[in-house]
């Protein structure tokens, strides 16, 4: 299926990362992607650009300066009041026009609700390929982007190319790529770009924004320690044992999909393929069998401890440490042991 890239597309150069900013804050996935984009740009010997869209002000300035710290060489900036809150029309217009004017060969976006909404529109207008939810990116011998992603709920992986069109677009889920180290960097070049749209052109209006009430909600993906329970916890009351341990560890808690479906815990706490990807230093999974759809969301953890009554549970195939036993008895014992140990050390230190 390989054809020669047309002369027109040969002029497309550089790796771009879309920097996702909502209500003044950059989504961490954008920095993770700059880290990954840096590797791709170095391999190709091209520049890495941050694409930053938002209303003028300090938040925008901060985002630009952070982009240098996370490895960008240059930044395309659309500073425009009507980009204050995300709406598809002005954002897809700005990003599409930027691509058509400055021609990147690779364009990466976070697979967040914003990123997926935007990427699908932009790729369709540009008539180029878009690979969704990638877990691995590489450059092949022909300088093409090899984007690997799980499908069929994680049972399969596939590697996808966009051979004959540019840019090669991909979305990547939060927490799949490691956060890059901040470095001292001198500012790069800023290329300002004007949005050719005014408020009257935009049909969609934002009437209200209702922030999530459970403030701890979104932190699961970025938690250092996560304790989760599965159907093996037996009943919603037993979930208390999970949250007790989480509290002692300063951890976030979550669950497998059935625990959400049964209403034991809220939907934003689902871990796995159709929930959150986590990357903690320690993941404790109690009463979770370790189905592939769960596994793909937790494999980035540095250390996994699984507690299960069944010595043959699949979770023991990818956990680092295992404990065969009844979670409803082991968890309270663990909570006590951690509490004692951490408290003693705290006093001693």
């Amino acid at each position, binding site marked *: 299926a390989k054809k020669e890239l047309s002369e027109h597309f040969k002029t497309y150069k550089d790796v771009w990362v879309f920097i996702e900013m909502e209500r003044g804050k950059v989504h961490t996935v954008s920095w993770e992607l700059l880290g990954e984009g840096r590797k791709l740009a170095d391999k190709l010997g091209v520049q890495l650009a941050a694409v930053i869209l938002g209303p003028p002000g300090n938040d925008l300035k901060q985002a630009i300066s952070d982009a240098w710290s996370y490895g960008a060489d240059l930044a395309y900036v659309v500073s425009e009041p009507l980009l204050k809150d995300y709406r598809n029309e002005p954002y897809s217009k700005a990003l599409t026009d930027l691509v058509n004017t400055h021609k990147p060969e690779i364009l990466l976006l976070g697979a967040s609700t914003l990123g997926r*909404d935007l990427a699908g529109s932009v790729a369709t207008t540009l008539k180029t390929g878009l690979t969704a939810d990638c877990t691995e990116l590489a450059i092949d011998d022909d300088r093409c982007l090899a984007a690997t992603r799980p499908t069929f709920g994680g049972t399969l992986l596939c590697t996808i190319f966009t051979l004959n069109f540019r840019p090669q677009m991909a979305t990547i889920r939060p927490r799949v790529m490691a956060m890059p180290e901040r470095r001292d960097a001198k500012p790069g070049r800023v290329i300002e770009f004007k949005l050719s749209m005014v408020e009257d052109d935009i049909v969609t209006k934002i009437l209200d924004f209702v922030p999530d009430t459970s403030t701890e909600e979104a932190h699961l993906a970025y938690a250092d320690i996560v304790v989760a329970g599965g159907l093996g916890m037996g009943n919603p009351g037993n979930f208390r044992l999970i949250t007790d341990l989480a509290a002692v560890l300063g951890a976030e808690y979550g669950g497998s999909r059935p625990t959400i479906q049964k209403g034991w815990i809220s939907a934003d706490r689902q871990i796995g393929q159709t929930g959150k990807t986590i990357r903690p230093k320690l993941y404790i999974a109690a009463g979770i069998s370790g189905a592939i759809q769960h596994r793909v969301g937790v494999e980035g953890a540095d250390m996994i401890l699984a507690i299960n009554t069944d010595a043959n549970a699949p979770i023991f195939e990818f956990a680092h440490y295992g404990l065969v036993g009844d979670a409803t008895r082991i968890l309270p014992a663990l909570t006590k042991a951690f509490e004692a140990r951490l408290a003693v050390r705290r006093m001693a230190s």
Partner: protein
Amino acid sequence: MHIVVCIKQVPDSAQIRVHPVTNTIMRQGVPTIINPYDLFALEEALRLRDKMGGKVTVLTMGPPMADESLRKALGLGADAAVLLTDRFFAGSDTLATSYALAAGIRKIGEEEPVDIVFTGKQTIDGDTAQVGPGIAKRLGLNQLTYVAAIRSLDLENRSIVVERRAEGGVQVLSTGLPCLITMLEGTNTLRRGAMDDMFRASRATIATWSAQQAGVDDIALCGLRGSPTVVKKVFAPQPRKEKAKMVETAGKSDAEIAQATLDTLFSANPKLETDLRKLAAAS
């Protein structure tokens, strides 16, 4: 009011297996279902129709046997069904899929203009969530993704207000018709089909359109040829080489097991203890 709901027939992914030698997907004998996420879209459409009158047309692109899913949707109460099926559609990626579906929707709209197009949030096989935005862009529909609730629909003024799940909260958006909505899961409860709908469905004729009949203007934009993405390799995830190290539990009390677990974790990774202490102190 005319609503089109896009539904995809997918393999029941819980039962998908990979051939151990060839690493290809073994679809044989795997039952197919309506993509579960699409049922929330269908239910929402049916509720709007029940409340405001009008018609719901279900649309799918797929092999001839995909008419099974359409028939199920009719049994749940949809009014009409269209199947796009053609060998030219085979191998479509999301760009080619949205092209074909957009053509189908345009054609459906010739008979009766379409006010709202619904899709699911994503599928459980391809799982990209890209087809909805693709259709919206191609047809110039106002795009509303991750919709959790429809607050109001005003057919007279051709406007709609929805709640959209965004990062960190819910956006309340108003936009004009026609629009495309990708419906979030868990937002409603699917009805059971009524007896007369099921009876009607079993005997309904399903409009079956080839690419040409759907009014596709450039066959080169369909299927494999019209797909910029190329799947080069499909493979099963590599199993981890080592299995979990098991904490010895035989003959120990729960407290002793817990102690042994801590010792194991912390001796394997002393830094973890420092990190934990910091976290516990902070919380």
